[in-house]
């Protein structure tokens, strides 16, 4: 078996909540409490669970948006958790993140061109504006957007289009691992399907590995190779997508699956 691209061992992220101080003790929130998983090249692993289970914190810790309390995350043979911000910066190109809310994740003051050019210049992938522009046009096309959207600003786009721009900002760096944190849950049903199809197609075509974080079991089944179910900061079950959906072993996974509304089933009465 080849070495996985990302190998997370016993990851813990704890937050102290409250200010502490005089006569008050800080309490500890164990958002992620000992999580281990691995992602191979070209593989899509879904992290599924309900709100507050810590799934988003896993993604945010892996991108250094939160600080890990303990554990290791070997990315391409290197532990990324104990890198300093400066050491981690070059690796950001390889580890990219798609955010949930397409209305909050784009800076309202930057044009689409400025927004997409920024990562190119930071990572030295373009020498000048025209070179950057070429790549921006190609990437916009990849996510199904017109080249003339470049000069426009985020508020001129619908939610689905904004999420496509968010995906373009990620794909323009040709990353090796994409962490997608609820990338479709803020969108309308018909737009969700479009964006899910887009993510699946881009993943297939580029062969990028993906950590797909979601509470939406339908989307998870549609997109992932393997699924890890998270509850209360810990993984309760990991397995191939089919196995998790068809023969779930853990009681929580079973309850989760039984809760999804399905056609032709009636509640009550």
């Amino acid at each position, binding site marked *: 078996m080849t070495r996985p691209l990302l190998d997370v061992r016993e990851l813990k992220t704890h937050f102290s909540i409250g200010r502490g101080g005089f006569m008050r003790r800080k309490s500890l929130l164990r958002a992620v409490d000992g999580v281990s998983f691995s992602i191979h090249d070209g593989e899509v692993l879904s992290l599924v669970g309900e709100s507050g289970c810590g799934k988003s914190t896993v993604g*945010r810790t892996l*991108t*250094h*948006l939160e600080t890990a309390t303990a554990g290791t995350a070997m990315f391409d043979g290197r532990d990324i958790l104990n890198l300093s911000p400066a050491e981690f*910066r*070059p690796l*950001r*190109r390889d580890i*990219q*993140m798609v*955010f*949930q*809310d397409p209305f*909050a*994740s*784009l*800076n*309202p*003051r*930057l044009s689409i061109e400025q927004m997409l050019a*920024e*990562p190119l210049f*930071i*990572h030295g992938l373009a020498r000048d504006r025209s070179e950057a522009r070429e790549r921006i046009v190609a990437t916009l096309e990849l996510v199904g957007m017109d080249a003339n959207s470049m000069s426009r*600003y985020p*508020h001129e786009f619908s939610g689905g289009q904004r999420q496509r721009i*968010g995906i373009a*900002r990620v794909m323009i*760096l040709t990353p090796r691992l994409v962490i997608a944190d609820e990338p479709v849950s803020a969108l309308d049903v018909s737009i969700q399907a479009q964006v899910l199809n887009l993510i699946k197609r881009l993943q297939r075509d580029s062969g990028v590995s993906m950590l797909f974080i979601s509470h939406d079991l339908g989307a998870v089944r549609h997109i992932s190779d393997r699924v890890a179910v998270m509850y209360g900061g810990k993984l309760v079950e990991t397995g191939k997508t089919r196995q998790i959906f068809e023969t779930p072993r853990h009681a929580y996974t079973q309850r989760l699956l039984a809760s999804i509304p399905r056609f032709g089933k009636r509640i009550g009465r």
Partner: protein
Amino acid sequence: MSVPLSIAPVFRGRALATIGACWLLVVGIAAVGAPLLAPFDPLEFDPFVRLSSPGWPHLFGTDHFGRDSLSRAIYGARMVILIGSGSVLIALVAGGLIGMLSAYFVRLGHLLMRIVDVLMAFPALLLALVLMTLLERSVLNTVIVIGIVYATTTARIVFGMTLKLKRDVFVDAAICSGAGHASVLFRHILPNLVSPMLVQASFIFAFAQLQAAALDFLGLGLPPEVPSWGNMLSEERIYVTRAPWLLIFPGALIILSVFSMNLVGDALRDNIDPRFKDDIAGV
């Protein structure tokens, strides 16, 4: 947010704010064209027409040195603009930087914001008085002192807004793109502070006038020979029964201008958040 910021929608359907803006335009023209507009030299004494009541040729009357009040009022507009823009500039640059850096770098913030808190514990006028007594009376010092007073409130406001912006997802996204501190601060956070700071600026502009007038009145502001509305009030206050117009005219000018600035500030503020503009409940 409206990008780029344009002027027309700010005043659409706001008659009062429009009138206010027109008045401020008049003050601006008076400031720029004072030498051409003023019928007399504002500094020239004329002992023969001391304390003359309003009429031709002294429309606003004359003061106890026989100087023409209208000309002094017109030159006073220069001080309005100078003190307003000067203190706004100092308050926004100093206060803005302190607030932004304090919110972004938490440890630095603990230090800087405590200093700001201490300064804010003084009433604004008292703080200005204390600082003015340490310095000599001059236009520059007045501007600096008023700027410092309002830098504290600006720092507080910018601190709060930056804390909120810092947690916005697009800042996370920029960090994930590899953006460094300078880029996050000045490229992603600062542009989102511009419109709220513009509103803040308009209020500082207004309050600075009151502050300056108060300092002048207490004899600690601009040097007495400088024609300003506050000095006019201050110097002529003993003649309030004999020549009330000497106080009525500059007083009215101050009130009218500050009121206009506040109206324009309100209009700006209401215009800045597009969420209120396009709010259609439930759609």
